């Protein structure tokens, strides 16, 4: 009788998601960026650690640590939460392992659409999507009779109108900090113009063209409507500007909407903060934005036992309906059972408008780096757009030659 009861008990509860959480050994160490959704994700994975050793490093400097830490053998981390751009250096250096076997064995509940496959092999499991889109102050736009902007040309016109009304001197904000952030804005705007970064099928740059010039000119127009310190402003800084009520239109990451709309800060500003899809530019159909996924990858230079333990814990989170329901407003989860709320409008609109994903090319990181430093002088008014684009291409070519891409 007792035996029957026990087997019944297992039949009842053994089929739940927690069945796979019986990790007996191994050590789990995760490297991740630092924002609320990722913290939730890693916490959920931790709930499944069993008797395995569990460590996590959340750092906004994760990109600087990842390659050196995973190159070591055994590597410092057993898993790295990566995105479309940060998986590329890991692939280039052959630092992550294919996950096919583990997905077959422990990947119950992970949807096929979550799998990142490269050359037929599963290299990462995505769990959330992200993009940059427009935020606007409903009260300000209504008072001045401005329609919600759909294109960057309308953003410029609306900002100029707000400035002319005397309500705000610098009504627009975007993360234009010299370096990675600024380059990301260029990438978005250039893709919105329909531009291609490289000559097809090669690593030769091809941004010095009319679309590149138009991109730079639009960035400069927007910069002129932003706080003059824009070259020092990252996502966090413009979030602060927004919360102080200095800004009425802003391009910012969807993953930041949670902290913008929480109970901290001026309730009137929070209530008037509204989200809409990313803007298009120059009459284009696709938005001037890139789609991003965040997913987990496993280090190659780590024992199979650790990889297995890590995968089981992370897979538990990557197929967790309860987490998705509880943290529905933290991110746009790609996990089954996610019901999009008002904070997901940006990403969902972007997908509907057929936004392109950030280019996952081996040499894209070098282009991004060259953009971040070489277009600054154009924005400062010290050189022409053509000269700036020529500089970007030249800086990129030197780096690409050193890295063996050209």
């Amino acid at each position, binding site marked *: 009788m007792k035996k029957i009861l026990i087997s019944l008990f297992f039949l009842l509860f053994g089929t739940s998601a927690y069945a796979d959480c019986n990790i007996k050994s191994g050590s789990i160490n995760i490297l991740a960026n630092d924002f609320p959704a990722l913290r939730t994700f890693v916490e959920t994975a931790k709930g499944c650690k069993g008797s395995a050793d569990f460590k996590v490093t959340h750092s906004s400097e994760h*990109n*600087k640590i990842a*390659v*050196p830490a995973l190159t070591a053998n055994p590597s410092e981390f057993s898993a790295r939460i990566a995105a*479309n*751009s*940060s998986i*590329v*250096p890991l*692939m*280039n250096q*052959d630092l992550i392992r294919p996950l096919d076997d583990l997905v077959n064995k422990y990947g119950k509940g992970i949807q096929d*659409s*979550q*799998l*990142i*496959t*490269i*050359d*037929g092999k599963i290299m990462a499991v995505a769990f959330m*999507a992200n993009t940059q889109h427009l935020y606007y102050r409903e009260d300000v736009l209504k008072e001045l009779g401005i329609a919600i902007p759909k294109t960057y040309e309308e953003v410029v016109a609306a900002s100029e109108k707000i400035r002319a009304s005397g309500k705000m*001197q610098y009504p627009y904000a975007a993360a234009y900090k*010299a*370096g990675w952030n600024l380059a990301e804005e260029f990438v978005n705007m250039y893709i919105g113009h329909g531009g291609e970064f490289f000559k097809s*099928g090669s690593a030769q740059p091809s941004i010095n063209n009319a679309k590149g010039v138009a991109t730079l000119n639009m960035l400069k127009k927007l910069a002129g409507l932003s706080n*003059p*310190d*824009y*070259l*020092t402003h990252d996502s966090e800084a413009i979030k602060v500007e927004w919360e102080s009520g200095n800004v009425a239109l802003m391009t910012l990451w969807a993953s930041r909407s949670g902290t913008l709309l929480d109970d901290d800060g001026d309730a009137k500003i929070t209530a008037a903060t509204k989200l809409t899809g990313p803007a298009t530019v120059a009459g284009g159909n696709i938005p001037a934005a890139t*789609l991003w*996924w965040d997913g987990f990858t496993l280090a190659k230079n780590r024992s199979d036992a650790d990889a297995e333990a890590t995968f089981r814990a992370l897979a538990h989170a990557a197929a967790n309906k309860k987490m998705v329901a509880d943290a529905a407003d933290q991110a746009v989860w*790609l996990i089954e059972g996610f019901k999009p709320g008002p904070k997901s409008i940006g990403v969902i609109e972007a*997908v509907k408008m057929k936004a392109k*994903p950030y280019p*996952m*090319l*081996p040499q894209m*990181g*070098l282009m*991004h*780096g060259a953009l*971040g*430093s070489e277009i*600054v*002088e154009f924005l*400062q008014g*010290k*050189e022409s757009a053509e000269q700036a684009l020529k*500089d970007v291409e*030249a*800086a990129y*070519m*030197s*780096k690409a*030659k*050193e*890295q*063996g*891409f050209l």
Partner: protein
Amino acid sequence: MPNKTFFWFFLPTGLAMILFIGLPIISTGIQSFYAQHDQVVKEVKKCDPFGCTVSIVVDQEKTSKIRDEKPLGKFNGFGTYIDRNHLAVDEIGKFWNETNSFGEFVDQVTNLPFYKALIFTLTYCLFVTPNVLLLGFIIALSLNAVTRRIRGPLIFGTILPMIVTPLVGSLVLFWMIDAEGIIGANLQMLMDDPYLSLKSSKTLTWITIIIYGIWHHSPFAFVVFYAALQTVPQEPVEAAIIDGASRWQRVRHIVLPHIYPVVTFVALISLMDNFRVFEPIIGFSAEGSAQSLSWLIYDNLVNEEVILFGSAAATSMMTIVGIAILLAPVLIRTWKEFRTAR
């Protein structure tokens, strides 16, 4: 000290220096002559939540074979040194032929990353070093003249800028000069220009960083000068007072010649430190307006998703050469004095 005794005294330090300074420099030097192997790429199908595309990846099988054969990479000689992101030999030749006036040529050259960084680094050195010496000396002289009772607290207050970690020091100033910070807001009021921003203008950013540099480094000069002032003999000073020498004359003809070797020492250390200026650029988020040689190295190592070891190594080697060139006149002079003194 007999040479043999000196040798045994110096041995532990010498070994540590070879191990922790000499060998890394040699290794950096070797790396600077190598570039990555040619990347073997292949076309593959990539699928993600947003759809499938045909794209390229690095072919790991072929690449790892090449890497195993030659782990250092492809020998590049001085290739990295003369490329566009460093000395840019070809580009400068081209500018010389293509530009019409010398001003235009200089404009083009200073637009190259290495020269841009070199100019900021040299400007910083040229303004900070003499001012540090001067300010440090003036503070030391004045503190030496106040009564002993309040000297202790005053000295402590004076060396505070040196105690504060450079990054923290620059961050504090960064927030103070913000348009809504105490200095920024008051400057706007004073200048009657509500749109004045210290961070957006290149010139003002440079001035801010230079002032920060002087503030941060002066205490070092002050401490050394203050110690040296304690060794100035009193007899000649008293004799000069009796002869009716003014305060300025006493400083000029007795104090300065006495502490001259110390001034050389401080100048050397200061120049070396300033040539490696780095923290304030990060602290002030001034990457857009001011780049130094050390910042270029940092940028190559961390700012790209792909790490450029060859570039970073080449810039490091050129920084070492730069410091050697800057110090050469002072070193030669010290050596000559040493010879004549013997």
